[in-house]
């Protein structure tokens, strides 16, 4: 797992996945980099309900509220990440953009099976980065594409977890 700049992406190994790591409150979150459309300062993002950039409209997504995280979004390192899943687009305010990282599949871990609640929809897995635990955010959930009715039935989730208790790489 290495921190890298935006350039030079063609030299990375085929099997890696790229994530933009951000911090909201005390939580470090990883967003699949393929969906990142831009990173704006608070002045650039403005204070409207939507952000328009390069002809696309991104509605504000209150990630901190959705995750019940206490966050201070007034600091100088606050940024707004413009994100698209292809189906939905959103502007997520974060306290800090940590950087882009390349992750090999065996560095991604599933969320431990003891986490049995809604967080299984919130996060696709986790990884250890430097001294931190980084949670891999599910962009579809963050942008409101998953309703509770669409969530996998509990029995199905449990069956899947038992079948692959410590499967590595699945989360990337």
């Amino acid at each position, binding site marked *: 797992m290495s921190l890298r700049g935006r350039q030079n992406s063609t030299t990375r190994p085929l099997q890696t996945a790229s994530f933009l790591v951000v911090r909201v409150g005390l939580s470090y979150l990883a967003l699949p980099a393929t969906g990142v459309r831009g990173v704006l300062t608070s002045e650039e993002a403005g204070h409207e309900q939507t952000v328009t950039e390069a002809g696309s409209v991104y509605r504000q997504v209150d990630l901190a509220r959705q995750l019940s995280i206490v966050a201070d979004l007034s600091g100088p390192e606050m940024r707004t990440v413009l994100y698209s899943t292809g189906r939905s687009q959103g502007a997520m305010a974060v306290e800090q953009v940590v950087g882009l990282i390349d992750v090999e599949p065996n560095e991604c871990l599933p969320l*431990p*099976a*003891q*986490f*049995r*609640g809604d967080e299984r929809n919130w996060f696709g897995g986790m990884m250890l980065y430097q*001294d931190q635990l980084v949670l891999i955010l599910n962009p579809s959930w963050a942008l409101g594409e998953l309703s509770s009715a669409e969530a996998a039935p509990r029995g199905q989730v449990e069956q899947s977890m038992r079948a692959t208790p410590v499967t590595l790489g699945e989360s990337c």
Partner: protein
Amino acid sequence: MLRASRGQHQVQGAKRSWNVVVFSVGGIRLAARTEDVGGVSPWTQTIQVPSGTPFVRAILKRDNRAMPVYDLAERLNRTVQGDPLLCLEVRHLDGPMAICIDADVPSLETVEVAAIRSSGGRDIESLGSVTIGEHDVTIVALQRLGRSIQDAVTR
């Protein structure tokens, strides 16, 4: 990091007695079968995880492993006591799990199966309760800790 009781060296009859680890959480003495305990070590700082699972809201990072933390003290409406606090590593059915326990070093005891009463007396997954010394001690079913309350929440 365990203290052995005086009778621990005695040869045990098959299935007629259990070896248990006696520990305390917020001053409440509890026990667990030794096979359900992976070890005891100093408690270290945890990493909070946004979660909707009752009492599971953090992860403890140790070396290259990440273990979920079960907040047994909160479930018992207690606050862990002493310094330094200890980590009880649990062999849970869903994988290794960490519990923060009081600073009192756990001890090993042997209890006769016949002396185990069916009711734990606490609202917690238990294998029964037993009298150790002068204390009524609940034997916590660590392997399935959290499962019944989660089922109740989602029912």
